[in-house]
Each structure stands twice: as C-alpha cells, then as structure tokens.
C-alpha cells in the first residue's frame, strides 16, 4: 500500500529537503520503519529505546492523532497520508 508521509522542517535534512515521501506499509509502525529504511536516521529520532514514539513526537493518520487510534498498530489504507509533527506547539 502506498502511503504519503508528511515530513516536518526539522527532519527534512534526512530527506534531502523533501516535505513528502511515499513509502509502503499497512500500519503506522510499518510505514515509519519503511521511512527509516529509505532515509536512515528517522528511526532514532522518532522512537525511544523501548521502540515507542518519543514523548514529543505526534503522528497523525488522516488528521487523527494515532494515540486516539491504535498507536503504531493503527492500520493505514492505500493513498492515506501520515503526518509526523513535533508535539511542542500551541497554548
């Protein structure tokens, strides 16, 4: 399944400046792993030592926070967009 991942400014140095990357995967976890394979460096920035999303990383599928869905197990459908966004904003 082809998924578009939106990359925040802070991580675009890993993608040669690209703001969107297309990868394959059927869950959020698979998509982010595929992103790390295609552009090494994402893994250590997005995940902590236990393999969970870092505290200050928010991931959205179709504009919903995956913490309200099934976390990294959240299923993604062909053509959907996954957004990686720094959590520290607002208020």
């Amino acid at each position, binding site marked *: 399944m082809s998924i578009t991942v*939106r990359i*925040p*400014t*802070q*991580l*675009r*140095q890993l993608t040669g400046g690209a*703001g969107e990357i297309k990868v394959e995967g059927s869950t959020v976890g698979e998509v982010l792993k595929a992103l790390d394979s295609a552009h090494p460096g994402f893994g250590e*920035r997005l995940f902590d030592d236990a393999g969970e999303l*870092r*505290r*200050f*990383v*928010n991931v*959205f599928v179709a*504009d919903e*926070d995956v*913490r*309200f869905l099934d976390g990294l197990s959240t299923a993604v459908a062909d053509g959907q967009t996954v*957004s990686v*966004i*720094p*959590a*520290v*904003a*607002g*208020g």
Partner: protein
Amino acid sequence: MSSVSGLRCRECGRTYPAEALHVCDFCFGPLEVSYDYDQIRATVTRERIESGPRTIWRYADLLPVDDPNPVDLGAGFTPLVRADRLAAELGLGELWIKDDTANPTGSFKDRVVSVALTKARQLGLKVAACASTGNLANSVAAHAARAGLESVVLIPSDLERAKVTMTAVYGGRVVAVDGTYDDVNRLCAELTSEHPDWAFVNVNVRTYYAEGSKTLAFETAEQLGWRAPDHVIVPIGSGSQLTKIAKGFAELAKVGLLDEVPEVRVSGAQAAGCAPVATAFAEGTDAIRPVKPSTIAKSLAIGNPADGWYALQTIRESGGSCAAVTDDEILDGIELLARTEGIFAETAGGVTIATLAKLAASGQVRSDECVVAMVTGHGLKTTEALFDRVGPTATIAPTLDAFDAAVDLGADGVRADVAAQRSDR
C-alpha cells in the same frame, strides 16, 4: 545588551543559536532560552526595575529580546489585589488575586505576544500568526495591528462570539477551522513548515513567547514587596504558563532580586471536561493521556497540552496540587469572585477560583499561606456562559410600589453574605 546566550534542548541538552527554532532537531524536545545569569546579576537591581515602564518591559533584563522600542500595547504590571472577602468565604488567610483581566486585550496573552512579536520583528519574520483558543487570537491581531504587520489567526469555529469579534476588529485574517483547538494546532504546526518566514507565535517563536509568562511571577514578587508567595494557583491549558511562573520566581533569586531562594508551591487548575494534567496527577502517573475536550472553559480546552508533562513535574516538585472542576463549579467560581471582589473573570478564571475553593476545602491550600490566584482573562470575553445564570433580579412596572415589592434590602441594608461573615468573627 542582551544576556541571551542561545537556545538549549530541555530533553537532550543540544544547543542552538537564538533563531526562530522551537524544538530540537534531534529529539523534538522543547528549546529553552539560555541566559548569562552572572551578567544579569551584575546589572539588574530592584531600583532599576522600579524606575522602568509600568509594563512587562520593566523586566527587560530577564526577557529574551532586547529592543528599545518593543511591540507594546502596555501589557503587564496589572493589579495584585488583596482578596480578604474571598479569603473569608474560603477560610483562607492572606489571599491575593493577580488581576490579569486588566491587560490591553483582556488577558495574560498580551505578555507573551508582546515578547514574541518583538523578537519576530528582530528576526525579520513578516507575518504574525497563531493557533488560538481565543485570547491569543485577540492579542496577536491587536499587537500585529500596532506593529503594522499582517496577521493570520486560526481559531476553532465554535469559539465564543466576543472572542471572534475582538480578533476580527483589528483587520487581520481570521480563519475559523471546523475542528477542536488540537486540530487547529496541528494545522498550524504543519503550516509552520510551509511558511518559515511567518511568526507563528506559539509554534516557531514559542521559545521566546513562553518566556513572557515569567513576568507574572516577577510582578507578583515585586508587588508583594520583593517577596515570593507561599502558594500560587495557575490555570492549565498547554501548561506553559505554569512552568514559566515557577521559573520566574527561581530566576528572581538567581539574579539576586530576592533575599532567599523561594519555595513556592505551584498548584494547577483544570476544567473537568479537559483535565489531562489533573488526571495524571490524581493517578500518580507520568504519562499525559490526550483527551477530546468538552468544557465551557474554551481558553483551556487543549486536549494534548504541549507542556503538560513539565507542568506536572513542576507541580509535584514544588509540593503543589492539581484539581479539576465541573462547568457548574466554574460558573460558581466566576460569580464568587465577582460577588466578593468585584473582579469579572472569564471561564478560565472561574476554573482558577473554583479549584482554589476545592483545594482550600481539602486543606491543600492552607490558611497560614500567602496565596496568589492567577486570574488570566476578562469576563466580557465569555459572557454567554452566564446568560442562563445572571440577569435582572426583577423586572417591574415604573412605580414605587412595584420597586418596594421587588427590592427589599432589610432594615440595615447590609448584604446577607457580609452579615454572615461578621457574625462568624
């Protein structure tokens, strides 16, 4: 001369230059402004501050931007009001209200926006923007108008009408988004990547913006005669204000403006319909679970608070507490403050007062403490919350008889609540 030495990640310690950066490129942790406190200590004195303007800029030595001509509508140096009648109702002793309803656009947001846009102008950013639950929108639109900047303000579409009007009147772009504040915030975080030359005050210049809230602590200490209170009650939206108030008291001691290192208990106030921090506090956990907000306290309706975790840490380390109050309790809090002290607060202020009442009743706020409650926004912004609660106490024909039948103040004309307090003594 600026005493800012750069930015530093609060999580991993990596350092960055003092530019429009808000999170660490490596771990996404929040960046904090680093100061050369020795340099500040060598310059700053109580007299130097007291001879400054009656605004937040009297504390320029402790702010992250140095500009002789800041973007300024006169934010700050709001009244610190001794609240004896409210204290008597709550069984407390020395109680003060920091009345931030008196700011130019009616909320504490003027403090942070004045700092953020002054820094944004220095950095050459062209447009003032933000995601807002209302108060910030008011303030960004007003300060941008003052500075001659274009403004783009994003708000949830279900905001109180007064807050929409108080934003739109300044002539900038006001974009209502169908969604919650958290949706608006996510959109702004994404827009920041697409418009790097805009100042999203609570995104890419948030590091500087947040420092403006320290002035609440600075003023409180100065107005108490250069002493810190024992206990402060602070409403929690994102949690930023609470952490910065604690930082402000600590900094005053660090630069020699207080005689001793203060031990201020910091307690947090949330609405029950959006209480991720109060819930984590009650459950004794570290994780802040995001929630979908449902509360009349829209200015605090942030389900995924950026600084929630730090606010929780600050509360615990200071020996403070945290509680949440229902919508009815919030309205009771607004009316209690208005009735006893003549201060009309918005719903967030009702959250603060209702939480204060709850913590006083449970003994967590004590009568032997000097207590300061932060009332951070004006009631005129959220009048619709009270439409079903208050109104004319009587509607009469224009005759003396009708008046006498409708208004009976008793023989001595003393208010019932005052008479009750007197008889208690």
